[in-house]
Structure formats: structure tokens, C-alpha cells
């Protein structure tokens, strides 16, 4: 199995749809921008992992370390007016699109200044202003949405395009085939990009997909496939630019597979029993940031000290992001019911749709509901502190996730 996987990856590495192995470097300014973005993502993710260990971040945390070239190379090919949709491993996408790091970190912390006001968390980042239409927690759930956004672009007669990113696991969902077919049938300006990081959670590609050349998986639906080296930011960029052009100009949706690797586990709760340290080491030797930096030095674009300064500044931006997130308050408890509905003619206030309150016809919104409901909300929120100590201890030992959280609760019940 292991050698089969290695062979598969070897083929993938060599295959870049005929593009040359070494792309010429872009302008100095572009090189700097691309490198800085990748560094910011890397440092942000490392810090997010640390914050998770300190229990500043709850739930799941999916880090994209190792996939920076894929994220930055692809998003650099987008126009400001294009749309991007991603999965639950999407901190990098939001940062690459320009969402301030502090706002992303604040969302991870569950704070009111987070990009989703603390409602979505790590898996559900969103930035309408920058046309980043979300991280989505359901594998394959964003493909129909992206197809719909592309339909709107087409319907409105614009030349905006949509880039929809998902993992190798999502190619096994029904929405994959359904969306490919519909997008091809209706000739929609969308690029489906599979970030093949070799694993659907802990199940290796060759154990979850009968066809392991994922770029071929949509051909039967009328969507041509392409491949790029997801560890080479320039190759990803070149490939994405080309498929976006085809989707935009020819109204032919495309599938682009980026071959990459996540250096960390699926989430922080992942003991990584499904792969060897040697395999991870092998991929780490192709670290997209180190290799791009090395080339910039070798070709004399930047001296090593300059590269180190970029990195230091990335760390500083992340420091600032953590300070911002830490300073941001948790959402007001009275906002619990905000934005369930768009208020207007049909829904004039929450009271018309929620029957929980003791007064069915208050004629006002839940946030002005009075002392008793507010007191009950406070009582519920007080449980937020419960289990924090145990969670921190477990996470410091490298454990986390729902299983550990359940153990924490068990301990509590036992009075431990």
C-alpha cells in the first residue's frame, strides 16, 4: 500500500500538464507579495495551533500547513470581483483573500470582532466584502453553492468567475458529480479545485477513491481535468490562471487538482496513526515556503536577511492578530437570536417565530426580553468556563477534540 501511494505521488509530482519544471519568476514585487502571504499563513496556523493548546480556540481546528503554495498560488489568479468558496480548512484562504489576520483569529477565539461575529468559528469564516463566500463544514457542501454563485455571475451577464476549493475526500460525495454535470450543462464560469492533500481525514487517497488521478474524475461529466504541483506556488498560479481563463472566457467549467500535503494532522485531535513519520518528512523536504525562499535567494531576488525580515514581520502580524482577538469581547448574550432571520415584512421580530418565551406576544425582539430569560442565558453561558482547566491540560499533552472533551465532562461528573 505504502509503495503504491508513493508511486502515485511520484507520478503526480512529475505531471504538471506539460508545463516546464521551473517557471520563470514573476516581478520582484509579486515574489514578495506571494512569499509574505505564504509566510503569514504558516505563522498564523502555527500560532492557531498554540492557541488551541491553550484552549483559546474550541471545537475543531484544521490547519493548512504545507498547503500554502496551493492556497496562495490559486487565489493570486483571482480578480477582486471573482468569488472564492472553500472548506473548513480555510484560514489560509481568508488570509490570502485579504481578511485581516486579527479578524480571522478573533473568529477562532469566538469573539464578536471575528469575521462571522463568533457564530461560525474556525470552519465557517466569511468575508462578503472580499467575495470570500465561506468556509463550509460539510464535505462537498460548497460545490452546489459555488455552482449557484457561478449561475448568478452568468445570469447577470458579468465576467466574474468562481473558484471552489475542496479536498480529495469531497470527490466521493454526490454533490461532486451533480455539480460537475450541472456546471458543464449550463456552461458556468466556475473552476473546481481539488486540494489533494492525500487524505480524507485519516483515510489515504488510495483507500477512499477507486480513481486516484482525481483530475480524471469529472471528465465523464463534461468537465476537463488538469493537474498542478501544489507545492510550487508558481505552478499552481500558472495552472489556475489558465483554467480560470477557460471558465471565464469559454464558459467551460474546469477541474484542477493540486497535489499537496498537509504537514499537520486532519485536525488537532488527530493522533496521525495512519501515516509514517518518514512519509511526512519526505514531503516536508518539499516545503513550499522554504523552497520558494531558497530560489529567491539563489536567483538573487532577495538576500537571505530580507527573507528573514519578511518572516519576522509575519510573526509580528500574527502577534498583533492575537492581541486583537484577545482584546475583542465575546458576543453579547442578548445577541443569541440575532440574524436567525432577516427581519422585514414577513418576520417582524423573533417573537413571531419562537414560542419558547413565557409571553407569546411581547411584540418585541428576544434581546429586550427582560430579566428572567436574560438570567437564564447568563446561567447557561457560565458553563463556558467549565472544563477549561482539563481541556488545557489535555491539549498541552497533545490531545484534544470531542473525545477528550467528553472525557473532561466525564471527569467532572465524577467530581475529578
Amino acid at each position, binding site marked *: 500500500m505504502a509503495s503504491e501511494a508513493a508511486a502515485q505521488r511520484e507520478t503526480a509530482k512529475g505531471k504538471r500538464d506539460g508545463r516546464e519544471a521551473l517557471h520563470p519568476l514573476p516581478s520582484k514585487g509579486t515574489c514578495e507579495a506571494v512569499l509574505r502571504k505564504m509566510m503569514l499563513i504558516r505563522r498564523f496556523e502555527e500560532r492557531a495551533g498554540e492557541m488551541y493548546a491553550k484552549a483559546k480556540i474550541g471545537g475543531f481546528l484544521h490547519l493548512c500547513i504545507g498547503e500554502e503554495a496551493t492556497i496562495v498560488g490559486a487565489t493570486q489568479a483571482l480578480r477582486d470581483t471573482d468569488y472564492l468558496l472553500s472548506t473548513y480548512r480555510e484560514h489560509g484562504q481568508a488570509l490570502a483573500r485579504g481578511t485581516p489576520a486579527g479578524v480571522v483569529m478573533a473568529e477562532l477565539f469566538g469573539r464578536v470582532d471575528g469575521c462571522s461575529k463568533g*457564530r461560525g468559528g474556525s470552519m465557517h469564516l466569511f468575508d462578503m466584502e472580499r467575495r470570500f*463566500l465561506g468556509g463550509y463544514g460539510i464535505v462537498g457542501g460548497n460545490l452546489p453553492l459555488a455552482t449557484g454563485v457561478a449561475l448568478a455571475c452568468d445570469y447577470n451577464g458579468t465576467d466574474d468567475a468562481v473558484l471552489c476549493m475542496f479536498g480529495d475526500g469531497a470527490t466521493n460525495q454526490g454533490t461532486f458529480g451533480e455539480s460537475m454535470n450541472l456546471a458543464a450543462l449550463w456552461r458556468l464560469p466556475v473552476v473546481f479545485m481539488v486540494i489533494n492533500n492525500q487524505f480524507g481525514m485519516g483515510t489515504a487517497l488510495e483507500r477512499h477513491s477507486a480513481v486516484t488521478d482525481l483530475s480524471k474524475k469529472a471528465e465523464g461529466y463534461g468537465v476537463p481535468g488538469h493537474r498542478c504541483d501544489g507545492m510550487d506556488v508558481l505552478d499552481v498560479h500558472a495552472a489556475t490562471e489558465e483554467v480560470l481563463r477557460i471558465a471565464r472566457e469559454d464558459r467551460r467549467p474546469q477541474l484542477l487538482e493540486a497535489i499537496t500535503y498537509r504537514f499537520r494532522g486532519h485536525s488537532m485531535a488527530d493522533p496521525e496513526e495512519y501515516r509514517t513519520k518518514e512519509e511526512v518528512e519526505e514531503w516536508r523536504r518539499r516545503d513550499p515556503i522554504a523552497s520558494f525562499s531558497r530560489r529567491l535567494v539563489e536567483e538573487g531576488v532577495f538576500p537571505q536577511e530580507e527573507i528573514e525580515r519578511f518572516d519576522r514581520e509575519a510573526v509580528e502580524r500574527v502577534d498583533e492578530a492575537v492581541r486583537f482577538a484577545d482584546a475583542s469581547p465575546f458576543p453579547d448574550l442578548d445577541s443569541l437570536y440575532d440574524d436567525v432571520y432577516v427581519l422585514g415584512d414577513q418576520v417582524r421580530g423573533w417573537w413571531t417565530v419562537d414560542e419558547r418565551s413565557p409571553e407569546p406576544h411581547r411584540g418585541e425582539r428576544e434581546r429586550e426580553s427582560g430579566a428572567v430569560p436574560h438570567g437564564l442565558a447568563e446561567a447557561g453561558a457560565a458553563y463556558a468556563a467549565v472544563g477549561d482547566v482539563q481541556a488545557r491540560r489535555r491539549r498541552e499533552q497533545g490531545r484534544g477534540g470531542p473525545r477528550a472533551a467528553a472525557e473532561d465532562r466525564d471527569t467532572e461528573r465524577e467530581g475529578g
Partner: protein
Amino acid sequence: MPVMRYREALNQALREEMERDQRVFIMGEDIGVFQGAFKVTQGLFQEFGEKRVRDTPISENTIVGVGVGAAMAGLRPIVELMTINFSLLAMDQIVNHAAAIHYMFGGQAKVPLVVRMPQGAGHQLGPTHSHSLEALYLHIPGLLVAAPSTPADAKGLLKAAIRDDNPVIFIEHEWLYGQRGEVPENGGPMRFGEAVVRREGADVTIVGISRMAVTAERAAEQLANEHEVEAEVIDPRTLRPLDLDTILASVRKTNRAVIVEEGWPHGGVGANLAALIQEQAFDHLDAPVARVTGADVPMPYSKPLEQAAFPHEEHVVHAALSLFRDL
């Protein structure tokens, strides 16, 4: 006032809203060239063309998801699903996406989407095409749920649904499609969350959902003619938002309530309403709240079995009379 069938009223609403707003379009299986499985979209393909009346492949989850995405990007899609049973294939997009997106992204995105679909038994379509699942959608915050029972309500509420900025589950009924009723000329959108009293009475309140509002009215006639019981019949018309006030005011007057629905008993609309009524009007009740529901079985095909499996007037009369047993 012009008289028309329920399906014609829906068709008028679709046509008028598409004429009014270029962002409104409709998509679904066989709604265009085929003119719709239940002919609700008849003539629209010829009138508006394939850009705005879009035949789709049989891919329910993706059709609804495309509607969600298009709505997020500023269009006002209407998705037709051929029956409510098929909407189960789209549960992920309806519950995890349409209903959640406005909330989980902190109010940044809106999903002005209407998902229309018929429900109901009576056409011998067996266990995969005949159910009544309004309770599933009633359960979900973030959705609006309409279940109109007359042509006028069908038209007024569909117009409202299309103009509203929230995702709306619009539940039609296969039996109601052929029913006639008066529809106001040049009628505008109606309001969600406004129940209607179909028949006034002082002895018992009967709440009928979807087609069962019609059954409840017929049962009320029987109760008056044969049993000297004057029933007040209420059609909530929308389940989210729910006009609980109208129902409670009636129960406070009659002191008795019967809820009639075609769906299953456990976790049903009646179960929910019974809980609300006893919470809010316990002191006014002279008898337990009664429920009349579909039988707790997948819908059978055989005609006598099928007819036995959903409520008719006799079931409602029986339930209403049972509330007077001790008098």
C-alpha cells in the same frame, strides 16, 4: 372575484413576480419544456425562456444548493421539487446551508430562496411520493414555512415568499392543486404569520394544516348539522412564523382544541401545537388537546389502505366529540 384552481393561482404568482423582478427565476425537474409535473409552471417556459425557466437534471441536493448560492450572490431563485419526499435528498442544502448561512456568517449573507414542493396522499403513489413532512421543516430555525390551503392564500403567500429575504419552504398539496377558489384580482403579497378563521364557532377549536384545513371545515359542517357542535376552524397558513395568538384566542373562547394534520403523529405539528396550547392556555382547557394525524406508517399503495391512513372528516368529528365525552 375570479375563480381559479390552486395550481393556476400559483402560476399567476410566479408569472407576476417574474414580470416584476428580473432577478426572479425558477428551476427544477421538468418545469420547462414538460410544463411541470403538476402543471404549476405551465406556459412560463414559452413566456420567459430558458434563462429564467430552467429545466434541471435530477439532482435535488445540488439544485437546492445552486439556489442557495445564486441567492447569496443576489438572485431570487425559486426551486421546484417534484414532491416533498424528494426534498429529503436536499436536506443537507436546506438545513446545513440555506437555514444556517445568514446566522453562521454573522448576518453577512442573505438567502432569498423559495423551495416549492407538493405533499400529500390520495393518489396511490405509495411510500416514496405521498408523505406530509411539514413538521420536519417547522423544526428548523432559519426557515420560513408556508402551507397554504386555498388558491388565494397560495398566490398571496407565494408572492410574499418570493419577495422575502429568508429561505422559504413552500409546501403545496397534490390534492389541492385541482381545487377552485376565489382569488382577488391584482392581489399583492400576503403576510406570513397571520392565521385565518375559516369558520366561527364557540364550542371547539379545530386547527387544520395544509389540505387538512379543508377537511376540518367539512368536519365542522358535520359537527353542526349532526351533533349541534359549533366548531371554530383555523388555518394557520404559515407554520414559521406561527400565528399562535389567533389559535390561543380561539381556545380561550372554546376551551377545547383539535389539531388536524396529514403527517405522522410523533414530533408532528399537532404535537408541537398541543404543547404550546397547554403551556399558554392551560387554565382555559376543559379537555386534553386532541390530535388527528396520518397513520404512523409509510404510506401504503393499495387504495383502501391509503385512504385509511390519512384523516377524513369522520376522524375529525370523532376527535372533536371525544372532547365532550364527560359532559
